[in-house]
């Protein structure tokens, strides 16, 4: 389909090669396995596939069809048209990894700007060029801490209030490191914001303490005591942050954390059924040489012109091979570009506006929902950003089924990941939700209650 060869050209080429047929070029492939019959349908023209794809896509209902209150790690924000306009430029999306800086200054400068925006947003010193997503960035944080202590400290203490998928991924990654224990998030640990149980676990064998800010339940918690405890035992601390919240919230850097990681999906990246998203990884200066993943640095060329290059590459897999601390090769180049454009086109004013709108609308929703009989805020005395937990009078699944009939996607059913949290719904509100949407939700909830 995309091969341009005419029969004449093929003939000419074979002559130059000195072969009779293309088939004979595959002589070394064991004969009995060569050219199998594949049970894959015949190819389709572009017109036909376009039609088929429309059909498949229409078997879905989307956040355009529903009013959605789903968050839990992926957020429905407005993406300005400028983002995709740039992303669709072939010079960006069909470019390779910028190993040859002379012909990749576009990509390299964009990543450099991304790194800069991430350090500013988080208040940290250095950002890498991105990781696969927030979950893998969190795992790489543990990797960094483990290697920082040269394997002498074997405990990773993680809060139960960190995203469940992130904790699962962390455990998958820690399997490869000898005798490393991931603890602190067992059901018995609970999700109390007083963090006392976590504090009790931190000792001289702790490499890293991981908490989320705001946490998985949307709560803004003061981790100062925890950070002090960790540092006094010589352990490192990592925050898992939500980037939109940092339009309003004090950044991780001001809490003196060592590592701040998160997922940049809210920054101009569509929901796209879970991926591709954007892992953000930032650290304090002292850890820069332990950073996995690509880094773009500023330098000059032979003519003295400012230029950008991939740097500290000796840390990476293609040079260190078995001695590198991580095997990471690709980053999420195009998604990092999306975030860079999003933050540039929103700028200081626009980004702050989005954060404020999320905050205000979420608080209005919380206030209105808690007025419905049978519904109450699970954590009424803890501040939150744009997500909050509501205790429901009936199982969340039943309520959501009813909401769906009214074209509303209710919040996340927490019992799916937290068996101790039955009848708890995690509701997210972004700038895309209007007051009317919230009032509609409340009206339907009142109905369910009376059912």
């Amino acid at each position: 389909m995309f091969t341009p060869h005419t029969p004449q050209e093929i003939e000419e080429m074979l002559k130059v090669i000195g072969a009779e047929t293309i088939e004979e070029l595959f002589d070394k492939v064991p004969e009995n396995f060569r050219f199998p019959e594949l049970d894959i349908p015949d190819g389709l023209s572009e017109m036909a596939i376009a039609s088929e794809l429309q059909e498949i896509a229409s078997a879905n209902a989307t956040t355009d069809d529903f009013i959605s209150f789903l968050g839990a790690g992926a957020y429905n924000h407005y993406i300005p048209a400028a983002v995709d306009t740039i992303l669709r430029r072939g010079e960006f999306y069909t470019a390779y990894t910028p190993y040859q800086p002379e012909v990749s200054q576009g990509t390299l400068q964009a990543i450099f700007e991304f790194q800069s925006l991430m350090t500013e947003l988080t208040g940290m010193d250095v950002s890498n060029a991105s990781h696969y997503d927030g979950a893998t960035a969190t795992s790489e944080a543990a990797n960094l801490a483990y290697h920082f202590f040269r394997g002498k400290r074997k405990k990773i203490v993680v809060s139960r209030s960190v995203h469940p998928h992130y904790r699962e991924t962390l455990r998958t990654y820690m399997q490869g490191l000898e005798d490393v224990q991931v603890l602190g998030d067992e059901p018995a640990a609970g999700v109390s914001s007083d963090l006392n149980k976590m504090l009790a676990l931190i000792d001289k064998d702790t490499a890293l303490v991981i908490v989320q800010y705001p946490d998985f339940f949307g709560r803004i918690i003061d981790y100062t005591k925890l950070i002090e405890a960790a540092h006094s035992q010589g352990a490192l601390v990592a925050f898992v942050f939500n980037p939109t919240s940092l339009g309003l919230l004090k950044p991780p850097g001001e809490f003196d954390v060592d590592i701040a990681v998160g997922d940049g999906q809210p920054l101009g990246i569509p929901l796209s059924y879970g991926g591709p998203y954007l892992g953000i990884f930032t650290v304090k200066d002292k850890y820069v040489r332990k950073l996995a993943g690509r880094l773009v640095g500023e330098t000059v060329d032979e003519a003295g012109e400012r230029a950008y290059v991939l740097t500290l590459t000796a840390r990476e897999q293609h040079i260190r091979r078995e001695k590198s601390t991580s095997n990471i090769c690709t980053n999420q180049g195009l998604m990092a570009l999306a975030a860079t454009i999003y933050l540039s086109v929103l700028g200081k004013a626009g980004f702050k506006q989005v954060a404020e709108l999320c905050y205000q609308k979420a608080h209005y929703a919380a206030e209105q929902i808690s007025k419905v009989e049978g519904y109450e805020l699970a954590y009424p005395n803890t501040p939150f950003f744009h997500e909050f937990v509501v205790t429901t009078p009936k199982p969340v699944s039943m309520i959501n089924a009813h909401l769906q009939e009214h074209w509303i996607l209710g919040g996340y059913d927490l019992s799916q990941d937290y068996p101790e949290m039955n009848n708890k719904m995690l509701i997210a509100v972004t700038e895309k939700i209007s007051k009317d949407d919230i009032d509609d939700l409340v009206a339907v909830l009142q109905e369910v209650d009376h059912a």
Partner: protein
Amino acid sequence: MNTPKGLKYAKTDEWVKLEGDVATIGISDYAQDQLSDVVYVEFAVEPGDSVSKGDAVATVESVKAAADVNFPADGEILELNEAVTENPESLNSDPYDNGWLLKMKLSDPSQLDELMDADAYDAYNESREG
């Protein structure tokens, strides 16, 4: 290639200066030339650590490579030359003097007998170039 007499050399391109039972090590002129511009030095040990022969005690990074520095004997780390982490270039400009990496107290100085002297090391390097 500069190969000072009076030092001992390992096949893995470290030099050793022995004073009593205290050994100072670094990387040879040949090594720094192979690596080209050193950009970073990282120590894998701290004063007080025990090391065995062959253990990696530091990593030297250049733009195109990262090489481990191995200690050719058993002993205890006494002192690190932290200055090289600020000025990694000194490994290129002055590998035998300001570019020293660390000092170690040897448990068995006779282990160093296996190492080459300056002439043997030069001959070894010539055979590698071929």
